[in-house]
């Protein structure tokens, strides 16, 4: 089952409250998304850990209902 962009954003925001989240529906089908997550709490973490924090927020949906979520992460610019 596809997920709504708002649901993805809510899950991420709940786990990472300071996150700035941009969700893009890549194919317009509600099933292929890109998420860009910027959070101060990512500072100092390797990229793998930043992505793992987002996956943890999605609580097991990644790789299941969310096969096609293209993820990029960053820390806020100074």
């Amino acid at each position, binding site marked *: 089952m596809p997920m709504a962009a708002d649901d993805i954003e809510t899950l991420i925001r709940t786990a990472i409250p300071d996150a700035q989240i941009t969700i893009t529906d890549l194919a317009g089908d509600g099933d292929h998304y890109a998420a860009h997550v910027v959070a101060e709490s990512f500072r100092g973490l390797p*990229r*793998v850990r930043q*992505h793992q924090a987002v*996956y943890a927020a999605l609580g097991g949906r*990644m*790789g299941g209902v969310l*096969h096609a979520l293209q993820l*990029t992460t960053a820390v806020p610019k100074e």
Partner: protein
Amino acid sequence: MTDDIHARLQGLVDANDVVLFMKGSPLFPQCGFSSRAIAILGHLNVVFESVDVLQDQGVRQGIKAFSDWPTIPQLYVKGEFVGGSDIMMEMFESGELQQLMEEKGVAQAA
């Protein structure tokens, strides 16, 4: 994950400088993300081993727990988990992945 699967996965990442766990083979990737990962490794021109997770359900499920990572493909360099295809793309575009391969002394493909 059984001890047996864990030992096999550990053996694979220990025995090869670069290992890509993927869906399908380098010539016939079975998923766009795996295909993208192969293209990146091709551009880097490094020697790598690939493991087709579709051939073995134990490996397919085991690798997710092994890496604490929910999706395939997954890249290991010198025993260290680097990430999935999005991280590979980000690192490739910024030149970090090339740098990592050089720093780790990964062999170039002929």
